[in-house]
């Protein structure tokens, strides 16, 4: 167990190194740079800017300097979008917002999606199945730039139950609508995957054995079927979680949330390398951690897998 964790930690560091290297060179390969503007910048000013940010040095030297700084924990300052501000400061301010929103959204997605999928699988090809799957399909087809304003209009405007914009970390009600908008799509995905996984398991012989033994229906589902039936859904959770955090740009702009998504898109549009690198490394850490946790949960749920891993 501890060896496996240490092993994965090493792999995670390697992932971050490769990720950082790729990001650095990809950003520098972009057909535009942070020192180009709609208004032409005078040559002497541009040269001065390039000097300050070390862009006058050869690319490999720049890479080496950046690598050294990052390893020492210095992410540098934003070159363009938030000119001069420490990237670590920006992340420290915006990331908790995105993280809270993402966690809240995932909680909503799991508590709606998985029970709905289980119910649909148990009542396959009957009314609950059709209704749940139709709603899920609607959730997948209606993009969040449609769902978000609709929810804001209905729950925020007409009913006045929740605030429609602004972000207050102390008030869960202000977070509810954006988290719901973000979580509904994942809930729809989860319900379909859960249904597929459960159908797969409910066919199997050990379920029939449990039934023949006279075990109660809900105990069969909870104790025997869920373990295997949730395999695809849990595999989806890792990427989905990271996706809700990195992909919340639209929701951030609908509900005026000071998260990381909008800054990140702006950084990409301007080629602001430091402000791209910071979030990318953070996402990388998040993805590696989320997928590791998912793998652990899979091991815990699946005795066959444990036996294989031990062998």
């Amino acid at each position, binding site marked *: 167990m501890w060896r496996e964790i240490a092993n994965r930690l090493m*792999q995670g560091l*390697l*992932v971050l190194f*490769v*990720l950082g290297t*790729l*990001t650095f060179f*990809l*950003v520098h*390969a*972009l*057909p535009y740079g942070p020192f180009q503007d709609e208004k032409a910048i005078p040559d002497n000013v541009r040269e001065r800017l390039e000097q300050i940010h070390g862009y006058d040095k050869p690319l490999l030297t720049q890479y080496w300097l950046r690598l050294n700084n990052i390893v020492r924990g210095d992410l540098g300052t934003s070159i363009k979008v938030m000119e001069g501000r420490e990237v670590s400061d920006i992340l420290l301010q915006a990331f908790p917002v995105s993280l809270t929103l993402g966690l809240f959204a995932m909680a909503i997605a799991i508590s709606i999606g998985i029970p709905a999928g289980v119910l649909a699988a148990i009542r396959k090809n009957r009314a609950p199945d059709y209704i749940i799957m*139709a709603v899920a*399909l*609607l959730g*997948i*087809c*209606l*993009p969040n*730039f*449609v769902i978000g*304003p609709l929810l804001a*209009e209905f729950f925020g405007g007409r009913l006045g139950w929740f605030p429609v914009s602004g972000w207050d970390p102390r008030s869960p009600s202000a977070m509810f609508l954006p988290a719901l908008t973000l979580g509904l799509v994942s809930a729809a*995905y989860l319900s*379909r*995957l859960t*249904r*597929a*996984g459960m*159908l*797969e398991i409910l*066919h*199997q012989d050990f379920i029939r054995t449990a039934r023949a033994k006279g075990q109660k229906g809900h105990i069969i589902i909870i104790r025997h079927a869920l373990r*295997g039936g949730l*395999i*695809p859904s*849990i*595999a*989806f959770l*890792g*990427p*989905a979680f*990271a996706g809700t955090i990195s992909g919340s740009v639209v929701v951030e702009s609908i509900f005026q949330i000071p998260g990381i998504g909008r800054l*990140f*898109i702006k950084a*990409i*549009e301007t080629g602001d390398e430091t402000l*791209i690198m910071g979030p*990318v490394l953070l*996402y*990388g850490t998040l*993805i*590696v951690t989320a*997928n590791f946790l998912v793998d652990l949960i*899979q091991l815990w749920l*699946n005795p*066959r*897998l444990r*036996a*294989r891993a031990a062998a």
Partner: protein
Amino acid sequence: MEKSRSITANNATIPDAGTDAGHSLWSDAWLRLRHNRAAMCGCAVLGLIILMCFIVPFLPALPDPAQQDLPGKNSTPSWSHWMGTDHLGRDLFSRILHGGRISILVGLITTMVSLTIGVAVGAVAGYLGGKVDAFLMRTVDILYSLPFLIIVILFSALAKGYTSDLTDWLVGLTGFNRDAIAPFTGLIPLFVAIGALSWLSISRIVRASVQDIAGREFVEAAKSLGLSHRRILMRHIIPNAIGPIVVYATLTIPSVMLFEATLSFLGMGVQPPYSSWGILIKDGADRMLSNPLLLIFPSIFFILTLLSLNFLGDGLRDALDPKSSKD
């Protein structure tokens, strides 16, 4: 098995129905699929929509989708404009059909690419495990975290130089009018880029299912019979993991179609006057309070397409499921 075999035996078009080895996984599945009413309905609706999008726009009766008519903007449905007009007075029905071609192509091509890569990577990682698994899954982690947008921007910029060559080649291949296909050839690199990066979730899901299946008794049996890894994977493991695969494929299609709209707004992808369902839905969403029809009509086409794809997908899942013949 009973049921499927009787179907095969009753069907005179299968020449070797009498011999035992006569029906493959696929011919069996096709027979079962044909008897699934929901799947066949889905197939018919899908066929109809594809037909409409790919043939009707060439009929002269349909208004030009780019033709603006500012005095007649935001009109309600009428005989001359079946679904009304948009904020610039363009015929919505015509725009939906023209846009459908792009969306359907984006959806199908990229999903095919991502499905092929995702299933292959996931199945190999889940089946072989160990170092191969670690390498493949860490690669997936890296690709997940790389900023998708940068890669698409770079890829489009890189491919721009080859667009006219590609167009020439396609004109030579198909004999189409150069002007008619030129706006679409620029999209092909985009299709490939989206497809090449959207296989990550599929691979994680397939890997999880394959890990579970690889430990079951029938795989042990197949191994002890001395079957090759390739054959075990293709014939015994992947058919058993088909449920999540089909479901995720039907989920990828809409997300890719909508992602294309996001890219178009960032200056890549389909550019005006051309459009796609994603763009029409996005345009409609911006004006949903003043003219909800602009959102509703494109959404109906979008949802109908996905609904039929889902029925087809579910039918395909049931047909391919090795265990479903027992019921």
